[in-house]
């Protein structure tokens, strides 16, 4: 399917997005965060927990005073590596258990420390590349079914139940499995450790949990003859750490948005901008596809009104991801099917928006979210709305398709609910597989006019944000009617200015 869109307007939107990204990028390059520093330690091999179950990377970063931290954790940790001769993991445990403090190794030269860290960092980088190569090989041997890739969530709070549900969903046709996180994990300033057996509304993202589901899905992939992807959430206060863990455990996708946490979780904007950048650099290297969170604009406000904001956010997410070295094929921009089912021609508006994104971001594996806001206890109606969503997705060539579930408004999906949802999607996508190839929306008709309106309003919005600056615009409530101040929100105390001798060993490797 093709609709007429004003390509000059698209070019102007991209220019505005670049102007919006410039000052953000300048800020990012002058700062780091505690989460970035902890992810450096995790990449070097530090793991485990110390007293009170505090993760070792947290204990080490917290042991540095502000002046020391401003130069980064790498050099002090490198000095300790040289002096003790320990491997990073053992050294981390010793530091966490009080067997040593970083301050005692100050006599080791900076050069020696740097050499020790570079050796470990290269090894870590090679591990990431090896996992990426492994994914490429597996996907080559066992190709996925054609897109839209059916994406299914599991969320029991117990990783072993999640594993069962994940395998059952894969058998029922799911091609991507997401383990929903325990509610509130985005607001924790640490990553929990070990396998989870009790969570609320989901299961903690931990490296152990990643490995458990990865192994089960690899086994299912072998049996089914098609590669089943695994995804999680690099959002909240620990974006770079989750990205590091995901790279090491060969996750295939991560939710990773440049503004979601700011707007919808009240996480400090400076923290988020710095964290999203480093996490995306890691994702670029590990070959992980990011999913952005534009669907959230639609669940909290009117979907027809918010359409230009969705497109504007897609442009900004794309630009910031490019700045972190991500190619278009790894940037899964988000959208959702959330227009009020009582609105006449709402379906046409949905097609317009989905097709607009498809044409503006041709390389992006677009992520399409199902209806949630207008789902009710009437599961029969819900199943019908989901079918219209499925049709929109296949006819506009969306890539990552989050299957809508008829019991969305009632409970965390039952195993049977997921199977019904997958059957719905498979039926609609089979029966209408090439519909989009064979229809041409009427030139100047309702779909084209709607797409043109959304694009032109988006252009105005981006110009306004570029003129005012992104941080000031968020402060003024331009996005989703939510106002956030640059120094407010959670996690601001974990942002710091880099000293002139600041060093992050992975920045060079990842560039």
């Amino acid at each position, binding site marked *: 399917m093709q609709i007429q869109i004003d390509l000059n307007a698209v070019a102007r939107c991209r220019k505005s997005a670049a102007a919006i990204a410039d000052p953000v990028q300048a800020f990012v390059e002058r700062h780091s965060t505690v989460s970035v520093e902890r992810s450096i330690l995790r990449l070097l091999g530090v793991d485990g927990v110390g007293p009170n179950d505090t993760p070792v990377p947290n204990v080490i970063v917290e042991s540095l005073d502000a002046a020391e931290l401003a130069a980064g954790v790498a050099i002090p940790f490198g000095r300790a590596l040289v002096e003790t001769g320990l491997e990073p993991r053992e050294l981390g445990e010793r530091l966490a258990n009080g067997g040593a403090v970083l301050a005692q190794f100050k006599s080791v030269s900076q050069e020696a420390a740097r050499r020790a860290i570079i050796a470990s960092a290269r090894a870590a980088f090679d591990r990431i590349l090896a996992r990426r190569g492994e994914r490429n090989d597996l996907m080559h041997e066992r190709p996925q079914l054609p897109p839209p890739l059916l994406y299914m969530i599991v969320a029991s*709070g117990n990783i072993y139940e999640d594993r069962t549900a994940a395998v*059952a969903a894969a058998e029922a046709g799911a091609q991507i499995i997401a383990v929903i996180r*325990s509610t509130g994990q985005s607001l924790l300033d640490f990553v929990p450790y070990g396998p989870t057996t009790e969570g609320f509304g989901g299961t903690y993202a931990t490296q152990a949990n990643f490995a458990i589901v990865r192994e089960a899905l690899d086994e299912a992939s072998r049996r089914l003859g098609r590669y089943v992807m695994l995804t999680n959430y690099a959002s909240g206060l620990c974006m770079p750490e989750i990205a590091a863990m995901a790279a090491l455990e060969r996750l295939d996708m991560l939710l990773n948005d440049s503004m979601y946490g700011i707007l919808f979780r*009240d996480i400090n904007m400076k923290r988020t901008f710095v964290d999203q950048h480093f996490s995306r650099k890691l994702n670029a290297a590990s070959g992980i596809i990011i999913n952005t969170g534009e669907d959230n604009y639609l*669940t*909290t406000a009117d979907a027809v009104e918010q359409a230009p904001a969705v497109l504007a956010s897609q442009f900004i997410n794309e630009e910031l991801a490019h700045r972190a070295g991500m190619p278009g094929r790894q940037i899964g921009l988000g959208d959702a099917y959330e227009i009020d089912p009582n609105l006449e021609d709402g379906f046409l508006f949905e097609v317009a928006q989905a097709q607009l994104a498809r044409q503006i971001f041709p390389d992006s594996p677009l992520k399409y979210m199902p209806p949630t806001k207008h789902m009710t206890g009437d599961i029969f109606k819900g199943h019908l709305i989901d079918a219209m969503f499925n049709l929109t997705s296949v006819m506009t060539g969306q890539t990552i398709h989050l299957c809508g579930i008829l019991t969305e*408004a009632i409970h965390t999906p039952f195993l049977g609910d997921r199977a019904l949802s997958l059957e719905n999607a498979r039926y609609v996508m089979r029966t209408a597989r090439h519909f989009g190839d064979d229809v041409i929306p009427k030139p100047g008709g309702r779909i084209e006019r709607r797409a043109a309106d959304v694009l032109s309003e988006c252009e105005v919005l981006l110009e306004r944000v570029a003129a005012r600056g992104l941080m000031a615009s968020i402060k003024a409530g331009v996005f989703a*009617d939510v106002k956030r101040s640059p120094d407010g929100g959670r996690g601001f105390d974990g942002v710091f200015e880099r000293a002139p001798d600041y060093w992050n060993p992975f920045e060079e490797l990842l560039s």
Partner: protein
Amino acid sequence: MIKPYGDTLDDGKVQLSFTLPVPWSEAADEAARQLVVKMGFADVQVAEGRAIAENFSFFVVYAATPQSIDFESLAVPSVKTHKMSMEEIDALLEERVGRRVRVAGACIGTDAHTVGIDAILNMKGYQGDYGLERYKMFETFNLGSQVSVEDLVRFTKEKKIDALLASQVVTQKGSDVKNFTALVELLEADGLRDNVILCCGGPRMTSLLATELGYDAGFGRGTLPSEVAAFIATRMPHRAG
């Protein structure tokens, strides 16, 4: 007395669907049938039985229940007041209370989903119905997500809150009920329970559940801000004198 209606009065027909953790086979169909008979149903027909994964089968079953309910004898509270506009509510409060009513709302416990409380409190509201922030006669405090019940009770005391809205979107394993109960208990322990109009909200909330939990009202999915506003306005005590 009433029974479910299929196509004839009192036929008692219901539909059920469920999953059994076994690979599908004729025996699985029979297991589904016997299970529904054990539930007390008669005339059980397994309309559909099939595999939905290697080790799971799904069933659609029609059956008739012998049970009935004495509808006339039921007493169910309803908090729905007659529909009032924002202007009417402001006018009512101006006349009856004569000062701005202080309303605090929060997503309690570990719940980070503020969509419900935001829809009620934020200026913009929900489905074209303005939120309480927009009312002249409400002073609102949206405390956001993951507010501990201790913090909420402390805030209620400090700010002399008139109406408290507690929200829980996540309902898995009854976490909502636990948190709602903890809030009531703490308010009672602090002697504050009778000083506030206490409301709870969430996707599964009903008036009946709210009453059982010790709340003045409960608001479920699809609630408009004006419904909450009208409830508060009609429950606010008249000003002295």
